[in-house]
């Protein structure tokens, strides 16, 4: 089974990398971009026995830093 975990910065947390990407996009001439936030995608290949709550525990213990980040779990078929 494959699960995708998206880790993103919480709202209100300054994202210097997203800002730099935004500037670079503007520099390349792409107009109309209002804001860019950068995050991280983690793909986990696991046994079906690994539950949603196991995955949540993984996120909270290691994959995301809950001080600054949120996570979203997307379980694929």
């Amino acid at each position, binding site marked *: 089974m494959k699960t995708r975990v998206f880790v993103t910065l919480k709202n209100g*947390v*300054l994202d*210097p*990398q997203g800002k730099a990407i935004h500037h670079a996009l503007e520099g390349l001439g792409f107009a109309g971009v209002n804001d860019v936030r950068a995050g991280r995608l983690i793909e986990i290949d696991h046994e079906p026995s690994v539950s949603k709550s196991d995955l949540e525990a993984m996120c909270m213990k290691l*994959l995301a*830093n809950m*001080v*600054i980040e949120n996570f979203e779990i997307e379980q694929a078929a």
Partner: protein
Amino acid sequence: MRAAVIQFPGSNCDRDMAVAINEIMGAETSLVWHRESELPQGLDLIAIPGGFSYGDYLRSGAMAARSPVMQAVVDAAGRGVPVLGVCNGFQILTEAGLLPGALMRNAGIRFVCRTVKLTIENSQSIFTSQYDSGEEISIPVAHHDGNYFADDVTLDRLEGEGRVAFRYAENVNGSARDIAGLLNDAGNVLGMMPHPERMIGAVHGGSDGRRLFEGLIREIA
């Protein structure tokens, strides 16, 4: 006096830290590999050095904070053993939950490597007793992720409790409230981005870092 410097794959200030502790404090200093689950007996100081543990994978300090030795460090800190984390060591201490907040990418994106001026904010701690409150000192920084973040409620509490040990006189990385060094609530854990072990004598061009170690001798002895 006995000290331990923890080594992770990617640590690169471990030797500098051990030399500083050994030379200034005269402590018998052992290097402890991150895979150890026990620390040497009777430690008076644990230092977590700078570097790029695990190549900064995932987040700076995230992997190191979950290595076996860190549980022993957390236990020792709970018993009151002084713990000093410098640079990557500060990042590891926040990731391990020994200090609040997080260290994010520098606000200017760039890696910052130069000597900066710091203001002593709290001269009552075991780490800062040889400095004067409000004094300005010069210590080098070398980091990409030194931008301290915590929510406003936490920041207010930290300031109210006198837990900001050092502040940047010039904010080089976007840190909230110019925070460069932070104490835990019991005062026995200090995390700081600047490198005191790189400013301990003429060969370094200054000795403002020396008094941190000298202060520890008095407090520990």
